[in-house]
């Protein structure tokens, strides 16, 4: 970035992520609203304090209000495990756990989550020991290209917690009597918010079923 220019330009040998990181350091602000082409922001970007606990680490941040949780994780905190698929709430690739509940991070403003405890795919393992859901996805080949996998795994972890809390679905008829029986069609319906364009669904369902039956999640 050259300080003598009015609008920032990207040096050709810098990657987009380097550029954003460098800009954030130089200006001291998060620039979540800047476009990929390095276009300048018309309005002066004001920031606000935001405190988040992400994967057990406390972050005291100053962020621009329009920064989504997804962009905060990927672009500002260098945690690219959470994936940006559609960026419009249609694919579920950006699913993370906020205070234990699964949400889509692309349609969530980071500032609105001030004080929240966020768990991403990077935070599921305990040291070198994989989370049971991660291990099951490996064991059952619950993926092909792997792009949707972090979202699938976070979503599955949140889903099993919902089941243990008695959350109904359209598969179980209402009003339900007795405990939920997590059949494969229940798993499919409850995971409908996570799209896999490789079509690894049978193995994703198998992995989730195995974790559910082992009672490990």
């Amino acid at each position, binding site marked *: 970035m050259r300080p003598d220019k009015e609008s920032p330009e990207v040096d050709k040998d810098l990657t987009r992520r380097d550029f954003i990181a460098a800009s954030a350091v130089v200006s001291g602000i998060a620039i979540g609203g800047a476009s990929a082409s390095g276009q300048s922001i018309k309005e002066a970007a004001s920031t606000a304090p935001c405190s988040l606990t992400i994967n057990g680490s406390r972050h005291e941040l100053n962020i621009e209000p329009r920064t989504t949780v997804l962009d905060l994780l990927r672009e500002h905190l260098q945690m690219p495990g959470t994936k940006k698929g559609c960026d419009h709430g249609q694919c579920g690739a950006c699913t993370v756990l906020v205070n234990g509940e699964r949400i889509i991070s692309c349609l969530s403003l980071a500032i609105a989550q001030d004080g929240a405890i966020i768990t991403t795919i990077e935070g599921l393992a305990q040291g070198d020991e994989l989370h049971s859901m991660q291990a099951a996805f490996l064991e059952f080949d619950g993926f092909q290209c792997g792009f949707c996998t972090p979202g699938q795994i976070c979503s599955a972890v949140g889903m099993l917690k*919902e089941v243990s809390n008695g959350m109904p679905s359209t598969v179980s008829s209402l009003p*339900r009597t007795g405990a939920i029986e997590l059949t494969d069609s229940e798993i499919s319906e409850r995971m409908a*918010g996570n799209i896999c364009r490789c079509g690894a669904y049978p193995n994703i369902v198998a992995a989730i079923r195995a974790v559910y039956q082992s009672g490990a999640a």
Partner: protein
Amino acid sequence: MNAFTYKRATSVDDALISIGAPPDSKFIGGGTNLIDLMKMGVEHPANLIDVSRLPLTNIEPHGDGTRIEGMVRNSAVVNHPLILERYPVLAMAILAGASPQIRNMATVAGNLLQRTRCFYFYDPSYRECNKRNPESGCAAVAGFNRIHAILGTSEHCIASHPSDMAVALAALEAMVQVKSVRGERSISMADFYRLPGNTPQVETTLQHGELITSIDLPAPFGKGSHYLKVRDRNSYAFALVSVAAVVELDESKRIRKARIALGGVAARPWRVPEAEHIMIGKEPNEATFKQAAYVLVQGAKPHRYNGFKVELARRSVVRALSIASGNSNA
């Protein structure tokens, strides 16, 4: 996305004062629709007042009915014993909408205020949209209008309302409680949404600065209810047609009271009192339901690609009423 100021309201009164006079201030709840529309450049509020943490998160008995406060998350509604026992059709409708992640985020107040999923509204590269850009025309009328409305449309707009929850609330005759610095008032679901007419940009009867504080359900009636949603895939898709049906039978197994609302066919959940009235005293059979379905869809005006919705709506009404009245063979 445009830059905006952000303020988290500390109380209902703080929210009502903070929304202030400027029309470019908006309340934000879960943000699942508003943030998306801001990314698309359809919405560009200068100020957001975050109401998602207001203490409006209870579901509680209210008179002989039930009150759902405005900031209750969609997922909390469907897992609440009062709703599951008294209004299963509402739980079924909410579970049929969006994805579990989105239901964990979205508030009930925000669900009511979703904008249409009309492709042309959602994409500002189309200049013509009377909702987005008043008096610019409607690209959908002569466009790909498979998902659009067949009832209550005007030449200015043929958008349909996307909410499943609202369809069930219409059948249950819920009341929407709103509050502003000017005071409180109560709006029936029948009066909450406006048909497009000459001003499709005005979608509800809410005034600027009014906050939805609760949705109040009257005492439940009828043992039988059903929410039927017909869509292109079995989950996580908007309705082509949906039906909320509630039926109460008398001692001789004839219909004492019935309520039907159609979704996916108009800018609001579609109810016709006459269609419900003609079922009173009749046997809950296919002939009765067909008659009601014909009255309900009377006056439908399909466009080039959505003519199928007329018959689909009729058949869906018959099936939903059959299931609601305990005769699922129809």
